[in-house]
């Protein structure tokens, strides 16, 4: 594995963590609509610890770095989000175990592994109105772009972000079948899922920061 893969993964993890910390209140408000409002707080407590420790994470491989992040999340994030996000990061780490160079196929595989882990952990199906309803369609979009031959990383990240946003918004019409929101029954229809929207915000922010990634030809031009 090249050093640049590790740097890129660190950049991505840092971007996710920063977005989670900066959106603590917003994510909490999303969860307050039909949930219990703790989602932003829970995520922020874990990811602020990630930001604190990330420079000390092992960085011989991207997999090791992701595993360290998964451990921080598991030990610091409570609620449903702790096991869900911890499992997602852990499965992402495992999927990179034997990967030397992180290409688009590896990224798609990583995202699928994370989604499968989350499904195994939380027993949610597509359509149950969880963050899976943003993660899985967005991963599909990335795979489709790959099939179409898109190779520009900026374009790929942008397409991923757009697909996340679109499918996150589409969760509005779903009725929650998992998590606290499910107790509100019919009333959960009409507002998007907090976890799905959080993924959209994270993906959009990543797309925005993508020009600043390590090794980008011209960080300022993007």
């Amino acid at each position, binding site marked *: 594995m090249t050093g640049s893969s590790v740097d890129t993964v660190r950049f991505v993890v840092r971007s996710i963590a920063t977005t989670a910390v900066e959106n603590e*209140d917003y994510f*909490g*408000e999303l969860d*307050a*609509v*039909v*949930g*219990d*409002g*703790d989602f*932003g*707080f*829970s995520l922020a*407590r874990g990811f602020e610890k990630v930001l604190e420790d990330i420079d000390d994470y092992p960085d011989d491989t991207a997999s090791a770095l992701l595993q360290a992040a998964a451990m921080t999340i*598991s*030990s*610091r*994030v*409570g*609620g*449903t*989000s*702790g*096991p*869900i996000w*911890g499992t997602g990061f852990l499965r992402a780490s495992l999927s990179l175990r034997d990967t030397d160079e992180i290409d688009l196929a590896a990224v798609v595989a990583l995202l699928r592994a994370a989604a499968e882990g989350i499904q195994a*952990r*939380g027993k949610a199906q597509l359509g149950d109105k969880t963050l899976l309803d943003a993660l899985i369609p967005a991963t599909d979009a990335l795979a489709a772009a790959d099939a179409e031959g898109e190779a520009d990383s900026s374009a790929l990240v942008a397409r991923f972000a757009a697909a996340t946003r679109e499918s996150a918004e589409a969760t509005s019409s779903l009725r929650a*079948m*998992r*998590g*606290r*929101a*499910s*107790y*509100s*029954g019919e*009333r959960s229809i009409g507002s998007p899922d907090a976890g799905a929207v959080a993924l959209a915000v994270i993906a959009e922010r990543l797309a925005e920061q993508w020009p600043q990634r390590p090794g980008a030809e011209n960080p300022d031009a993007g």
Partner: protein
Amino acid sequence: MKKFVDDPKDFVPQMLRGLALANPDTLRYVPEYNLIHRADAPSDDRVTVIQGSGSGHEPAHVMTVGPGMLTAACPGDVFAAPPVEYVYETIKRLASAKGVLLIVNNYTGDRMAFEMAQELGSAEGIEVRTLFVDDDVAVQDSLYTVGRRGVAGNFFVMKAVGAAAEAGADLDELVRIGEKVNAATRTMGLALTACTPPAKGSPLFELEADKIEFGVGIHGEPGRKRVEVGSATEMVTALVDAVAADLEVVQGDRLALMANGLGGTPISELYLAYGIAHELLTGRGAAIERSYVGEYCTSLDMAGLSVTIVRLDDEIAGLLAAPAEIAVRVF
């Protein structure tokens, strides 16, 4: 926000520190893991009984640790199940030769955290069993949902299991008792106001001056429907009817009855509501053998009430009557 809060991030740790300072002889506090445990635990004479859940439900569960009740409680932040690591550390530190029983309210986050911790504990050779509590009749149970949630009825499971554990019962016996009590227990709640989590600083939802949320849980989330506020008799009757119907209360039943305050309702109103519920049930020919009025499982400062009914037999009644000593009941 008008609350006794410094930094909202320190809300739970500061509460736990206060609890430990107020009970220096009986409780121990391990700040790293939000852990409150009996000073005399673990003991190999007793199964270790642990309950964790989000905070904000006090006195559940950190203030119900003590002889005859919980061995330990490991809460998460407000309304958030504890991180897996907290549960795992609690199991490791308090494991007894007779094993560990986890009592878990049936919520996705709590289930996952406790299941993962149980796997980790079992892998180290600690015998760990789990009891799920799901007494809330407000939730329509179905194959395709997460099932009913655990709310104030949890108290009766803790109390019965705690009494049996104190008397030396083994893990199998505790699981049998806990499942039996859970199956005999039903709850329904309503909220007059939304609660204000310290980290949010404003009410979790807007509730009009003349509306209540019927069928709420204990996490400040909205209930099943928003209806007009009624008189005490109207509101209590709606709760009692729902619970009694689900439990199929019939003439001659022996019952325990709880009027549980959700945090902001004064005890005067709870007793008033209790009296109405009591007379409704005796009017149906049931006998109320045990009465519980006060705050057992709350949603921060939410004004509201839940009614819990337990169908008793001699075994359950005996366990509920056994002595116990916990922080909020000692003076």
